[in-house]
Each structure stands twice: as C-alpha cells, then as structure tokens.
C-alpha cells in the first residue's frame, strides 16, 4: 500500500489531533470537555437561491462528557484512531469492513472490550458521529459506502482519474462497448473532458430506462451523456453529477416519475442535497439540474397512462403527506426560486394522481424510439422546469 493522503486529509488529521489535545487538556484541568457538531436536520437547513443547495444554519449539537456520554465518546475516539490510521497508510474500507476491523481489535484486547459494538448499526453511528465532530466527509477518512447507481454512457466523454498514489488513468467512455462507466468512491478525483460538443446530460431515475435509451442508440444519434440514478441518488451519483456540472458546460436534465417521492426525495437531493448531509451538500449537489419530466402537462399533451394515488396504500399516502410537509417546512420548496416545482407538488396533492416515467412508451407502441423522440422534443421545446 502506498502512503497517500490529500491535502484536505492532512488538514483533517491535524484538526482531529488538535481536538484530542483540547479534550486532554480540559481533562487535566478537571473541566468537562464539550464536543460540538453542526446540527444536521431540516430545521437547521438554509436555502439561498444564489448558492443553490441546502447549507447549515447556526444550530449545533453539543455533547458534553458525562456519565452517559463517556461510552459514546470513548467509542468515537477508538474509531477515530482506526480511521486516522487508514488515512495515514492509504487504507480504504467500507462501513461494514470497519465494523469487522473494530470487532477484531476489540476481541484481541480485553482492556477495551467494553467498547464492543453489538451490531453494525452501532459502529456506523460512531463513524457518522466522528465525521460530524470533525465536519468532514466519510470518504475523506477513507471510508466508502458501497454506492450504487451512476451508470454513465456517452460517446463523447473522457474521464481522467487520479489514483491515491498520484498516477492517473484515462477512461474513454466510447470504448467501453455496452458497459457503462461507474463513478465510484471519490468523484472529486475525476477530471472530465468532452470530445467535441456535448448537447446535454440526461439523468434518469430508472437505470433500466437509461440502458434502453442507450441500447436503442441515443448516444449515437446525439452527443450526450446518459446517467442512471437508480432511485434516490447515492453520494457517488450526487458527486458525479456535480462534477459534470462543474467541469462541462452542458445543460443537465433529470427525468423521472411524476410523484411526490421523486420530486422531493430524488430530485431535490440531486439538485440541492439533503438535510442529513448539510455539511457535504456543497460537493454533493448539482443546483443547475432541471426537471424535464414527467410534467403534469405531459399527461394531457401525450395522453399518458396515469394512476390515482392509492390512499389506502400507506407508503403512497405518506408520500403525499410528506409533500404537504415539505411545502411548509422545506426551505428548498419554500423558496421563490423553485415556484415551478411547488406548482407541480400542489398539482400532485390536489389531483392525487401519479404518472410513471415509462408511460411515454405508451404513446406509440410500435415505435421503439418514441421515448427518445419525446425527450429530445421536450429538451428542444424547453418543456422543463
């Protein structure tokens, strides 16, 4: 393994050690140390249209050292030590692997046995807590989730990846055959280059539909990038789309189902981040993304198949209820900037209808390219929000 850490990582390391030093000094003085972290919740989320993503407000959570927190803090320091060691030697692990690493260490040392984790939920929470007090990303401590989604297809994109040891690798997406490119781990290490002019980037909620579009030749006919989000976008997808936004000047469109869940959970997260990741939204959201559909007017225009929301299905009903909440409490939807989206949400709540992205295939069952045609038509005619 090659010793490697980014500049950001050495900053984190020294601030972690400074924090430990402060804790120790306070203990020496018999004072009660207090750890403080940004409060990551909707009520501490700020949305400024010019910034475009959710940023943290001024609220903080304080954990002072006392009888009930001594275990949690001891565990966090134990985990911090593992993570810093990883950063120091360039080791990389998933949360699950870190769980087993901890279990191994705890087993071999009876002195620290009391810290033992009962299950991965506990070790995951400890990792998250460490990141919160250090105000850094998990990835910056070399802990990577097994991120899903982000399959990317293009005939016009070249990605240069900088490896941990400083070497670079170049990936020409047009030479991957039918395989997609998967933006893993640290999108920040990827540099993008366009081969010629790229017209647009299309992020689809359904990875299956993305694959269909590509198989039918959309990337051959149009200079574009097609990304499959695979549901609620993972960190990798969010970081990757943000990368595309920053490094290529192409319009990015999101296309998914017309329902409250897609708008609120999937689209809002992609565009402005989430409340639970306030400290990382800066690098993990793409404020320029636009909502291509399905739009309420598409239903009429293309006579799309659609459904009534099943109010007796608890998850669908809950989704509508959450949409109402969002209109009231989510600073993203309360901003004037997103009036168009609010209109859609209101339409969803009032009409209690929903329409799936695949319904475009119903427009002409005999034309396999109908979906692509409508997408292109919508982009050209500015039919998006």
């Amino acid at each position: 393994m090659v010793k490697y850490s980014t500049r950001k990582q050495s900053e984190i390391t020294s601030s972690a050690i400074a924090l430990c030093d402060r804790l120790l000094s306070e203990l020496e003085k018999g004072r009660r140390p207090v750890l403080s972290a940004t409060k990551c919740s909707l009520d501490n989320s700020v949305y400024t249209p010019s910034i475009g993503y959710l940023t943290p407000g001024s609220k903080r959570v304080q954990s002072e050292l006392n009888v009930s927190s001594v275990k949690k803090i001891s565990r966090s320091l134990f985990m911090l030590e593992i993570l810093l060691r990883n950063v120091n030697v360039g080791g990389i692990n998933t949360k699950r692997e870190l769980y087993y690493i901890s279990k191994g260490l705890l087993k071999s040392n009876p002195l620290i046995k009391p810290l033992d984790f009962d299950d991965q939920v506990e070790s995951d929470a400890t990792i998250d807590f460490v990141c919160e007090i250090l105000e850094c990303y998990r990835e910056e401590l070399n802990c990577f989730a097994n991120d899903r989604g982000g399959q990317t297809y293009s005939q016009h994109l070249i990605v240069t990846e900088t490896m941990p040891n400083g070497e670079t690798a170049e990936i020409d997406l047009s030479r991957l055959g039918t395989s997609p490119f998967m933006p893993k781990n640290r999108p920040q290490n990827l540099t993008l280059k366009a081969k010629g002019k790229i017209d647009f980037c299309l992020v689809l909620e359904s990875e299956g539909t993305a694959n269909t579009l590509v198989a039918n030749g959309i990337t051959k006919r149009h200079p574009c990038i097609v990304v499959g989000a695979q549901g609620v976008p993972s960190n990798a997808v969010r970081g990757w789309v943000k990368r595309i936004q920053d490094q290529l000047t192409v319009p990015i469109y999101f296309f998914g189902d017309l329902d409250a869940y897609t708008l609120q959970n999937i689209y809002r997260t992609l565009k402005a981040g989430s409340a639970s990741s306030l400290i990382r939204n800066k690098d993990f959201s793409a404020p320029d993304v636009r909502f291509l559909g399905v739009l309420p007017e598409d239903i009429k225009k293309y006579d799309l198949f659609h459904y009534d929301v099943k109010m007796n299905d608890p998850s669908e009903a809950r989704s509508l209820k959450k949409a109402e909440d969002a209109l009231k409490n989510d600073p993203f939807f309360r901003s004037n900037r997103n009036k168009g989206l609010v209109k859609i949400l209101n339409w969803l709540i009032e009409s209690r209808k929903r329409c799936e992205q695949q319904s475009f295939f119903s427009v002409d069952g005999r034309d396999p390219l109908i979906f692509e045609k409508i997408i292109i038509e919508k982009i050209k005619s500015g039919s998006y929000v």
Partner: protein
Amino acid sequence: MTNSSSQITKSSTAEYFAKNLQQVGFSSPAKAVLTTLKEAMDNALDACEEFGILPEITVIIEKKGKGHLRHTDRIMIRVVDNGPGLTLQQVPMVFGEYLASSKFGRGRCSRGQQGIGISAATTWAVQTSATGARVITKQKNMKKALSCMVITDLKKNQGIIKEKEMTNWDREHGTSVEFLIDGRLQMNGEGGILAYLRGNILLNPHLTLKYQLPDLAPTTISRVSDIVPVIPPSLPPHPHTMKLGEFMSHARLFGRIKLSDWLERGFSRLSRPEITAIVKTSGYKASLAEQTVTSLTAEQLKKLFATIQEMDLRPPATKSVITIGEEALSLSIQRLGQIDYFSVVSRRPIICDLKPVQVEVAVARLQTKGGDSDEAVQVLRFANRVPLQFDRASCAIIKAISSVNWRAYNLKQSKGGLPSGPYIIAVSIVSPFIKFKNASKETIDASDELVEEIRAALMKAGLKLSRHLKKEHKERELESKLQHIEKFSPILVDTLCRLTNANKERRLRAENGLLKILGRDNQETVKELQAAEVKLAAHLSKQKDSLVMFNDEDKQLMHHEEELSEKPLDLEEAEPKKKTKKAPAAKKAPAAKKKKKK
C-alpha cells in the same frame, strides 16, 4: 354375584371409596402419586402441630421399575415425621379404615378434615401393587418401634395388620409411612410434586423438610421459625351461618337444657339481652326461655330461628383462624429459590360471607438469567395451608389475581389475564369453613366478598412490590453508572494519550481530572438516590398512619393509590377516569377522622 342385578346390596363405606378412588384424588396415575404424598405429609404436619412439635419431615420418592397398569411406573413414596407416633390400636384405624379421624368436622383449620385420605392411599396400594401401607411408628414412651404392613378389609371397612414386628428405631418418636403404588411421577408444573413441596415450604416456616426425588440432588430446607402454630380452638357456630335444619338438629345435641342456656352456650354472639329480645320479638312469654329445649315444638323453634335471622348480631369472631404472619412469610418465601425481592401482606381476619377468613399474600420475583419471560406468573394457591393444585380456572384466587391491574405495579399483564414474568404469587386462605366449588376441593368458591378481600391483599402486596421495583431500578442505574465510569475512563484517557502522543504526566493528570468530573456526576446520583429513599420512608410511615382500623377506609385508600399509580397507563385506556377527582377526598378522610378522635 350372578343375581346381583336384582338384589339390593349394601356396600361398606370402604367399598364405596374403593370403587370411587377417582373422587378422592386418584383419578390419574400422576395424581395418585401426588395425592398419596399429600395425604401422608398433611397428616405428618397436622400431627406435629397438634402436639406442639417442630416438624422435621423427610420425603423420599423412588422409581422401582414398570407398574402393573399401562403407562405407569412402580413408585415408592415414603414420608417420615418426628410427630407423636401412633399406638398399636390406632395404626389399623388410621391407615385402613375410612372416616376414622380425630379432626372430623370440628370447625378448625387443620389440613385433614374427614379421615378419608390416607386410607384411600392404602387402598390404591392394595389395588395396584398388592401391598399396603408400610408403617413404622413410635411414641415417646415406647422402647421399640412398631413396624407393620396395613391393608384394608373393604367389606368390613377395617384395617388389617400384617408382618407386625417390634424394631429398634433411632428416633424418640415419629411415624414413617411408605407406599408402593402404580403411578406416574410428575415433578413440574402446577400439579407437580415440586409445586406441592414448595407450597408447604412457603406456608410452614417452622418446617424442616428433607427430600430425595428421582433425578434431583437430595435437598434440605431448614426451618426459619421456631414457633409451632397453634390451631385456635373452634368456636360455637354463629346463628347466622346456620340453616333451619341445622338449627333444629343442633337443638337435640344438648339434651335437656334450658332454652336460654342452649342459646347462650351453643352459639356465638348470643348473650342474655339478645336472648330476652329473641323470645319477646318471637311473641312468646319470657318464661319460654326457662323451658327445656326438648319440650319446644318444631313450630316454636322455627319461629325463634326466623327471629334470630332478622336480628342484628355482632359478626362472628375471627379468633378461630390461624395466621402465618408477615414476618414468618418474609423469611419463608426466601426458601423458594433465588429471589430478588418479595412483598408479603397478612390481612387481618375478617368476616366474609358470614365466616371468619384470613387472607395472606406473598409475591416474589425469582432471579432469572436473561430478560423477563412472557410466561404467566406462578400462582400458589392454598386453602387452610394445603396447596391447591388443580382446577384453578374458576377459583376465587385466580379471579382476584386477574382482576388486579398489575401493570400499575410495573408487572406485565395482558388485559384480564394473569400477570407475566418470573414471579410467584402465593395466596393463602384460612378459614374453618372454606367453601369449595366442587367435591375434589381444588377450587375455592369465588364469592364477591371473598374475591374483593383477596384483591385488597394483592393490591397492597403489589404496591409494596412496585416500590421495590422502583428502588431497584434506581440502584441498578447507579450501579451501571459506577461501572461505566470504571470501565470507560481508562480507555478514554488511553486513546486520547495515544492520539496526541502525550507523556506520563499528562496522562496522570487527565485520569484524575476525569475521575473528578465523573465522580461529581456519581455523587449527584447517590444524592438523588438518598433523597428518593427518604421520600419513600416518609411515604411509608404516612401510609401506616392512615391505614387505621377500618377495613373500608383501608380499601378506599388502596383504591386511591391504585388510581394514582394507574395514571401513566391512562393513555392505553380510553375511558377517562372521573374518579380521580374524588379520590383525594377519600384519602384525606381517615386522617381527618383521626385528628378528631384525638
């Protein structure tokens, strides 16, 4: 026998019972073993009590191969006591003759009542394995012990002694009785041998019990009290507890006696003024009281009886019931196993359905490994200190337990059912006249009055228990905090020192600092705990003060406390409690009265 169907035959008492052993506890192989043990042990306990002897009883049960009946084993049951022993004349009567008893219908709280049990066991032994009761017995004045086999002559309802022998026995006095019967050994469960023994252990603090049972290590449970309970003498009947027929035949028992003397001596709670009033109210001349009872007409007796029933008499005395007492119960319950804590309540004897009754309750939590189980609590029921082990469903005790809201005392309970968890709830009912629901005497009749009385006892026990629970909870919390500090402090300092590369001096200072910080937390907890204890003590003494002599107030107070402690649970129960407003008034009432009295 060929013509028997056309003949009317008169069978002896013994023959009747021999054919109907299932009615007296021999209805199944498992029950046969339990009943045999029970009859022998009850007798041993009764005999010791009668003679003021501290009982030391040994129970030995062994399997001796397959039984003659299908699906049975041959089982040997031996019960040895240090009781008074029996004479040569008594032995065949006791073990071979039905209805031969020294306790028959005496209105006392002894275990045996009719003299059926032990002879039935002998009959079962004769029927299933062609042996009888093997008896060794010795009285204090005898040099040698009498050893013999007793069998029953069913035709004559007589015991016959065989293999008689005088032997040396290394004890001053006592009786050993041994049966070899076909049966099945059921150790566990409500109807098991162990439940019977545990029941006796609990209710007889003065008993030392040794037992050797198959597959279990020999066990000795030592006595925790040196007081032999004295069974109070029986009292003459209270006239209100009698039916007309009983009243009339009672009149004949006394021979030529003056009416006034008969009423005075033959009954409880009738004295001269009452008797004068009875005669007058019945419309007779005062001179009637001077006539002999035998000279009265049936008409006159009926009239007198009717008058008495209408009169207000003092309730019967409660002197005839036997009490175990809270102190003895508290010691005894700790013999039932590893017990975390317990609470006992001994109610004052009261009159219930016109009969004196005393209810005593013990609740204990067994130490368990792992969490609380969802199994229903173990219920131990007793009538006159005899464990009741069958037909519990409609028993007054079970009804009372299910009617209490145990959740208010931090026990788990499904609505209307028994509470669950590793608890024992023991309820003892003592009365010279216990009303059973059926002939097998396993179910106490659930009259409203009795259920209410048991309920009151249970609620008081529950209240005491929940205090234990709360206190224990606090203590656990404190203890886990202390452990917390001890466990995590060194780890925390260690890790910090490693991460910062700190030297020894820093480490030492930090360790001390941390102990100081967490120690402060700790002191606070201790203070909190102390404050809680002071509050609890104050509360308890206040409660003692207000539990004055009046049973009803006592009940009211407890209703009130139950309501209070139920409050947090109200969320679950839809109906709002209107009573809560009234309750404080009910609580204040006794205190206010007391002040006035002073």
